[in-house]
C-alpha cells in the first residue's frame, strides 16, 4: 500500500522540480549549488514555496524575548519555533526549504531545460563488462553453493516415490543424487566509459572571477556527463607557460602568473590520453578554458596542429571555452575558428560573464556527442 503521505510527498517533489527548472538559469549563473554537493545529492534552497497569505512584513514586527542584555544589544535571531508537533498546523515556518535532489535528477532537469540531446557513446559495443547472475539449478557444483531447500525437496520426492517416507517419523536423508546446486550465467554488458580532461589557463590574466566561471561550468558539465556515462573519470591540467596535472582542489584554487603557452597543455593532455585512455575503450572529452591570450603566433599554430593531429581524432569532441578577462578577450578563439571553421569535432564558445554560462553549456553539450 502506498501511504497517502508518500503521494503528497511525490507531488511536492514534482513541484520542487518545476521550481528548480524555472530557476535553473539563476542557479547556474550564481553557482550557489556547488558548495552544496554531497556524494550523490545536491541540496538546493528553494525559495517561497509557501502558500501566500495576507500577513505582516517580517522585519517590521519585532517581538518579545527573554534573557539578559541591555537595550541596544543585538540578539541572534533563532528560528521562531515553528510547529514542533504539539499543535502542528497553526503556525507556518518561514524557512528557506532545502531540498535534496539526486545528481541524476538534476542532470535530467538540466537536460530538459537546455534541451540537451542524449549522448550516443562512441564504440560502446567494443567494451564489455562481465557480470555473473545466479539464475538456475544443476545437479553438480561446489558444496558452498548447495541449494538446501531444493536438495531436501528432491530427497523427499524420492523417499515418497520409493515408499521409504514415514509420516510418523518424518526423517528425510538426501543422498548424493539428490543434491542440487545453484548455477550461474555470465552476462556481458556493453559499458561506456568516459574521461573528461579539464584544462585551464592559470596565467596572470585569469582572475578569480574567471576561475569561478570555469568552476561553475565544469560542475554542470560534470553533472551532465556523469548522468550519461556510468563510469566516468575526471583529470585536471593547469598551464601557464608549462603544463602539469593536478588534483581537483588545486585546479580550482591555484593562482599562477606568467605567460601562456596553450600548446603545453594540449601536449600533456594528448600524452595522458595516449598513456591511459585507449580511444577504442574510452569516450574522451577534453575541455579547455582560457582567456585566449596565447603567447605567440607560432604557439597557436602548434596548438592547431596538435588539435588536428592528436586530440580531435581521439576525442568525441574537443571543447574550448574562452572566458573574458579584465584585459579583454584574446585572439585564440578567432584563430581556432579560422582554422577549423564549423568543424563538428571542435566546439568553441565565448563566455563573457556568469550569465553566459548557460548558453555556453548548451554550446558544448548541445550537439549530443
Amino acid at each position, binding site marked *: 500500500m502506498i501511504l497517502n503521505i508518500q503521494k503528497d510527498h511525490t507531488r511536492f517533489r514534482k513541484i520542487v522540480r518545476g521550481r528548480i527548472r524555472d530557476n535553473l538559469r539563476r542557479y547556474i549563473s550564481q553557482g550557489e549549488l556547488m558548495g552544496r554537493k554531497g556524494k550523490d545529492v545536491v541540496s538546493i534552497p528553494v525559495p517561497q514555496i509557501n502558500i501566500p497569505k495576507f500577513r505582516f512584513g517580517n522585519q517590521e514586527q519585532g517581538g518579545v524575548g527573554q534573557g539578559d542584555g541591555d537595550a541596544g544589544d543585538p540578539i*541572534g535571531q533563532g528560528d*521562531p519555533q515553528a510547529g514542533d508537533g504539539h499543535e502542528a498546523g497553526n503556525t507556518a515556518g518561514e524557512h528557506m526549504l532545502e531540498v535534496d535532489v539526486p545528481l541524476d535528477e538534476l542532470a535530467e532537469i538540466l537536460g530538459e531545460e537546455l534541451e540537451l540531446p542524449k549522448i550516443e557513446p562512441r564504440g560502446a559495443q567494443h567494451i564489455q563488462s562481465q557480470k555473473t547472475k545466479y539464475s538456475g539449478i544443476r545437479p553438480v557444483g561446489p558444496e558452498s553453493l548447495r541449494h538446501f531447500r531444493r536438495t531436501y525437496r528432491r530427497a523427499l520426492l524420492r523417499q515418497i516415490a520409493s515408499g521409504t517416507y514415514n509420516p510418523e517419523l518424518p526423517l528425510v536423508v538426501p543422498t548424493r543424487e539428490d543434491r542440487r546446486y545453484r548455477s550461474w550465467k555470465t552476462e556481458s554488458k556493453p559499458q561506456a566509459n568516459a574521461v573528461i580532461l579539464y584544462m585551464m589557463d592559470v596565467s596572470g590574466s585569469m582572475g578569480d572571477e574567471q576561475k569561478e566561471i570555469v568552476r561553475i561550468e565544469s560542475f554542470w558539465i560534470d553533472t551532465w556527463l556523469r548522468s550519461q556515462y556510468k563510469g566516468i573519470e575526471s583529470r585536471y591540467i593547469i598551464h601557464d607557460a608549462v603544463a602539469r596535472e593536478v588534483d581537483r582542489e588545486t585546479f580550482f584554487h591555484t593562482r599562477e602568473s606568467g605567460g601562456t603557452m596553450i600548446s603545453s597543455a594540449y601536449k600533456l593532455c594528448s600524452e595522458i590520453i595516449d598513456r591511459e585512455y585507449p580511444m577504442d575503450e574510452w569516450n574522451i572529452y577534453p575541455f579547455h578554458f582560457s582567456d585566449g591570450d596565447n603567447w605567440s603566433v607560432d604557439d597557436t599554430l602548434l596548438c592547431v596542429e596538435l588539435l588536428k593531429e592528436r586530440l580531435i581524432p581521439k576525442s568525441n569532441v574537443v571543447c574550448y571555452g574562452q572566458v573574458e578577462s579584465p584585459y579583454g578577450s584574446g585572439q585564440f578563439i578567432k584563430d581556432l575558428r579560422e582554422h577549423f571553421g564549423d568543424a563538428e569535432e571542435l566546439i568553441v564558445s565565448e563566455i563573457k560573464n556568469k550569465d553566459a554560462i548557460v548558453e555556453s553549456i548548451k554550446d558544448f553539450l548541445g550537439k549530443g556527442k
Partner: protein
Amino acid sequence: MTLPTYLQDIQREIQGYALEYGLDFYDTIFELVDYQKMNEVASYGGFPVRYPHWRFGMEYERMTKSYSYGLHKIYELVINNDPCYAYLLEGNSLVDQKMVMAHVYGHCDFFKMNQWFSPTNRKMIDQMANHASRVRRYVDRHGMTQVEEFLDICLSLENLIDRHSPYIRRTEKRDSQEGDNASALEPLRLKANKQYLDRYVHPEEALAEERERLKTEAADKSKRFPVEPVQDVVLFLMEHAPIEKWQQDVLNIVREEAYYFVPQGMTKIMNEGWASYWHSTMMTQRVLNDSEIVDFADHHAATMAMQPGGLNPYKLGLELFRDIEDRWNRGRFGKEYDECQDLEEKLHWDRRLGQGRERIFQVRRIHNDVTFLDEFLTPEFCWRQKLFTYEYNRKRAGFEIFSRDFSSIKQKLLGQLTNMGQPFIFVEDGNYGNRGELLLWHRYDGVDLDPAYGRDTLKNVQSVWNRPVHVRTEIDGKPRLWSHDGEQFKEQPFE
C-alpha cells in the same frame, strides 16, 4: 499500535493521578508509533486521514530531514477530539514516555474544559476523514491538478476568517425587523433632567439635521453590499463568488478546518503552560522514582529553553500559571496589595489564602492567551523573567533589544497575539465602483502588510472573484490601494 502492557500500566497510574488532581478529560487513547509514522501523522497536523495536498508532503520532507539531522524530534502529539488521541514515539526512554503522558493529560483537560474550545467539533478525526473523501471524489471527477490548484487558492485565503464568530450567540437575526431600522433613525438624546431644559439641550434644528443625516446614512447603507464590513472573507466568497458547487465545498472544507484550529492558536501559551504545569507537578510529586529525576530535569529544561529572540510558549505559560498560583496562595492581589507602598512589606506579603490551585483551574476555564496576559502579566513577573522587546535595526540589519519597559512588553505581546498575529481584513464592498469588483479593507494598526505575499494572495482572491479585486491598506502610514485584475498587479495611492 496499541500500547504494550508496561506502558498501559503507566498510563493507568498517571491517569489516576490526573483525576486525583482534579483534571477533567475525555477518554485518552495513546498510540505507540515509530518516527516515520510520527512524522507522517505530524505532517497531517495530527490527523490520520487528510485530503491530498502537496503541502503535507512538504511538511513531511522538512520533518524527516530535520529528524535525520537530529535537529528536532517530536515527543508527543495530541488531538482535540473525543476520545482524545495522543501519539507516543517508540524508542523514547521510559522517563520521556511518562513525562509525555502527564503532559498529554494536561492538554486533554484543557481541550475539554477551556471555554474557547467549546464550539470545536469533538469528532474532528471523523470530520477530517469525511473532508478527505469528499476532496478525493472531486479529484476523481475533475482531476488532481485542477482540485489541487484550487486548494492552493483556498489555503492562501484560510486566515481570512472571523475568529470570534463561533463564540457569538445571536438570539435573533439582526437587520430583520423594519422596526429596528425605524428606531435607528431617531437621533440619540442626552439626558435632560429638567423638562424645561430639553429644548435647549436638543434644539429642533439640530434634531432635524441629525435625523436627515441618519436617513441618508441608512439609505447609503442599504445600498451598500455588504451592509457592514465582513471579516469572514472566505464565507463571503463562498456565498457570493461565481464558483462551481465543488469549489464551494472545497472552500467550505478549508474554512471549517481553519476554524477548528483557531482555539489552539488562541490559547497556545495557556495550553502549553497548563500541560507543562501538570507534567511537572505530577512527575515531581507522584510519578518519578529517585533514579529518574535527573533525566526528567534534563528533558524538562530542554523543553523550557528559551532561544534568544524567541518566546517559548511552554516556558511563559508555565511561569505565569505558577505565578498566579503563588499570588493567590499568598493573597498578593487586589486593592490592598496594589496600593501598598512599602516594598519590604510587599516582598514578604503572605495572607495564607491558599486559593492558588482553585484560581488556576478557573483561569484555564475562562481565558485565552490575550485575556490571560492582559490580566495576569505583572511588572514583577516581567522583571523576574527578564522579558524584553526587540526591534529591527535597519542600520545594523539585525534585531536588537529595544526595551525592558513593562507596558511596551505587554503591548507587544498582546499585539502579536491579537487575531493570532494575523492582519484584520474585511470585505468592504462587493460592488466596488459599481463594476462588480471586490474591495477588501486592511484595518491598519501600524504594521504594514508584506507586499510580496500580498500581491500573490490578491491574485488568488481575484481568481475566485473573477472580477478585479482591490485591497485598501496603508504603507508607511499612507493609504494605498492594491489592485489585481487577473493580468497584473497595480499599486496606487488611495484618496
